[in-house]
């Protein structure tokens, strides 16, 4: 098996073999490639970056070049997939709440991962340093970043509640995608990256 980014490895454990998956912002197609080889998963990726489109095609991953902010209705009918996955992308879309609803329109379950803005180092930088936080998970300057909708675990869970979305599974890890007892006890303070699996309530 090829080396897989650890958050993708966690996600792939969550996905039942033989299912249909849509990967939003699929990047170079590693997750779908892995899922199709190891878990007999059939699916498509959506991606906007031209180089990533080429990488996906090289891997034999089915990819549609499309802007996520244009929505999914151009392409996908209701209940077309078992899972709709979006890794490290929800903070970069224009309307995260609309996106979550769209994910659960076309898929039975959704999986998202995002950098946790509630991590203690972000809090410290803002509270004591008085400047916008930067970290391993959020390396960009505030004025030059695709990340326009940062949130904390608490924020995300509050939005799910509002949208009547049931959270089925949650995992928090550091940027090396390791977890420890502290993160389990105080996830919103100690977790750098959050992973969620959810479905319509």
């Amino acid at each position, binding site marked *: 098996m090829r080396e897989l980014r650890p958050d993708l490895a966690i996600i792939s454990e969550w996905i039942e073999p033989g299912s249909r998956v849509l990967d939003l912002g699929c990047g170079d197609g590693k997750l779908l490639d892995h899922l199709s080889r190891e878990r007999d998963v059939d699916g498509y990726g959506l991606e906007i970056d*031209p180089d990533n*489109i080429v990488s996906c*095609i*090289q891997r034999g991953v*089915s*990819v*549609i*070049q499309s802007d996520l902010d244009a929505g999914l209705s151009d*392409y996908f009918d209701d209940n077309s997939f078992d899972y709709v996955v979006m890794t490290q992308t929800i903070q970069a879309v224009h309307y995260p709440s609309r996106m979550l609803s769209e994910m659960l329109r076309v898929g039975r379950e959704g999986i998202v991962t995002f950098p946790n803005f509630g991590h203690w180092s972000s809090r410290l930088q803002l509270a004591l340093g008085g400047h916008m936080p930067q970290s391993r998970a959020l390396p960009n300057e505030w004025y030059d970043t695709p990340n326009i909708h940062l949130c904390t675990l608490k924020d995300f869970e509050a939005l799910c509640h509002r949208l009547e979305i049931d959270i089925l599974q949650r995992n928090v890890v550091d940027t090396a995608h390791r977890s420890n007892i502290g993160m389990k006890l105080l996830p919103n303070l100690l977790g750098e990256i959050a992973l969620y699996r959810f479905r319509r309530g």
Partner: protein
Amino acid sequence: MPESIPADSVGLVTTHRHHFDLPLTLDCGRALAQYDLVFETYGELNAGRSNAILICHALSGDHHAAGFHSMDDRKPGWWDSAIGPGKPIDTNRFFVVSLNNLGGCKGSSGPNTVNPETGKLWGPDFPIVTVRDWVNSQARLADTLGIRQWAAVIGGSLGGMQVMQWAIDYPERLRHAVVIAAAPNLTAQNIAFNEVVRQALRSDPDFHDGRYADFGVVPAQGLKIARMLGHITYLSDDAMRKKFGRELREGKISFGFDVEFQVESYLRYQGESFVERFDANTYLLMTKALDYFDPAAECDGDLSAALAGVQAKFLVVSFTSDWRFSPERSREIVKALLDGDKTVSYAEVEAHHGHDAFLIPIPHYFDVFRSYMENVACEVG
């Protein structure tokens, strides 16, 4: 003329001709009792006969897609940028077949060939052929070449429509379908452009209801105007601005109706050179084939239903500035394939060249194309 043949060219090529005796029934209800198809091939067919690629040409294309006919040729075949050793359609790995479609004017049976039943030129009496008729004739050509299944059928524009028709009518006879700058049917605006083209041709005093050959003339004015209109619509506003701007040939305006702006000079040149190389009756037939193509029509307008039976894997490509076959139209094809859970990838290439982009080696386009074809080559290896 090429000083020497470039290393990535298929080199000097020859045209083949095959005569078909078995009548071909056409969509229009008429039949061709016998007909000829001319074609070229590049690369070697492998022992398993699994590496064959069919190229479908667009409106003014023909069988000469790559290489040179002689050292005196000024230009190589029309898709030489994409076909050759190491190019996206790599002739070191594929056996490429490119033909002139029925109704064409470059050697296959068409208006400028002799009707064997009358001994006279077909002229305007050549039956109106459709994309489906072409695909049926191409399937017969495949039979004669011993090709049961194409590794891929590839085409841009009207050629892309033939690719779709192949996947619908002969689902088992192609592994991959590469549909570039195409559409599931023409929009009203596109049909309107074609009608202006037809009117330009038919209202030329030298047209003589299509029997111009009997009068020893060609409807040159009509052909010129038709081609000029085509050229304007195949480019984008942006591409024309970049290429010509408002540049004047003589540096100043002359208050007359001769050529003043560079763009006028370009269009006149394109129009005039087209008169030399194309036939008016063929042009009329091609525009009709475009207008009639609509595979969804047989399924009450449901393209997903029309594509439900396809087995080929698809690569669909569109270009952002193409307003005659816009990305929206390619997305309709992609959506219909997704509805049927077909295997499809789609690239929307950023390009300012308009519809002509499909003939231009734009880096992202060719990276996508080459990567896809490499996988096809590995699959049929």
